[in-house]
């Protein structure tokens, strides 16, 4: 597996995978959107259930992106591998975007469904804090000039955040039961909604993978450019 961590091999592998990735992205999103809009209105939520098909995938990707950063950070600190640094940094803006989309779509879903654009329930609050964690992570990367130092400092911060996320969730949950907050409508999902949801989630996943690979490729090329310019100068 670590063979592919070699930048040249990564370029080769990702170059081969990318077209498939984009293809699958389009297929899944198209299928998911079609099934999503073809699905009947939910007896409770009406047609607003269609927002779920873009809200839940965004939320899933937001958390997945952070997991990617956390794992990459471990490799970054233990193996000191440049690709790990690159991958972590590449994932952050995407994760922040997914978090923002999750918050916005969640808010628009909440207003017609529960009557409020925002409720301080455990999930939404933890999610909002996740956005701040992403922004802080990105800010730390930008603030430190030395790239190696920045990578290691950011890796430490990412892992501290990762450890903290379950604690934050627990504390917000506890706080919520204290104040008897609203609870999100939960329960089993009818297959007619489950399939579009899964397809959209897969589509979002493939999109994230495609964007990640492209961003890492771009970073590798930029490093090559920098070393060429330094050699030339």
């Amino acid at each position, binding site marked *: 597996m670590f063979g592919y961590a070699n930048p040249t091999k990564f370029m080769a592998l990702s170059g081969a995978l990318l077209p498939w990735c984009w293809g699958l992205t389009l297929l899944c999103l198209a299928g998911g959107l079609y099934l999503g*809009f073809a699905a009947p*209105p939910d007896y409770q939520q*009406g*047609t*607003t259930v*269609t*927002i779920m098909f*873009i*809200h839940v995938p*965004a939320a899933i990707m937001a958390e997945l992106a952070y997991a990617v950063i956390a794992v990459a950070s471990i490799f970054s600190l233990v193996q000191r591998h440049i690709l790990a640094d690159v991958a972590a940094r590449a994932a952050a*803006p*995407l994760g922040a*975007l997914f978090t*923002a*989309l999750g918050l*916005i*779509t969640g808010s*628009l*879903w909440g*207003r*017609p469904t529960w009557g409020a654009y925002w409720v301080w329930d455990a999930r939404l609050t933890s999610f909002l804090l996740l956005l701040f964690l992403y922004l802080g992570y990105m800010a730390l990367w930008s603030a430190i000039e030395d790239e190696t130092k920045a990578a290691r400092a950011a890796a430490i911060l990412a892992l501290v955040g990762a450890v903290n996320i379950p604690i934050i969730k627990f504390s917000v949950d506890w706080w919520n039961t204290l104040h008897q907050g609203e609870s999100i409508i939960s329960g089993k999902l009818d297959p007619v909604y489950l399939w579009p949801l899964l397809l959209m989630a897969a589509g979002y996943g493939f*999109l994230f993978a495609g*964007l990640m690979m*492209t*961003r890492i*490729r*771009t970073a590798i*090329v*930029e490093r*090559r*450019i920098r070393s*060429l*310019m330094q050699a*030339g100068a």
Partner: protein
Amino acid sequence: MSALAAFFAVHGGGYGAFIWPAYAVSALGLGGATAWTLLCWRKAKARLAALEKP
């Protein structure tokens, strides 16, 4: 009634004011991110090609 009109009959209305903005924001966000990512990639490739040529 065309299929499109029937579509909007179901998916428009009161809830539409929430559904369409949600989809619009998501499309803009993801589409923008994709466009930006691909643009940066193309620019980097072009610069590398220019540097490696002479």
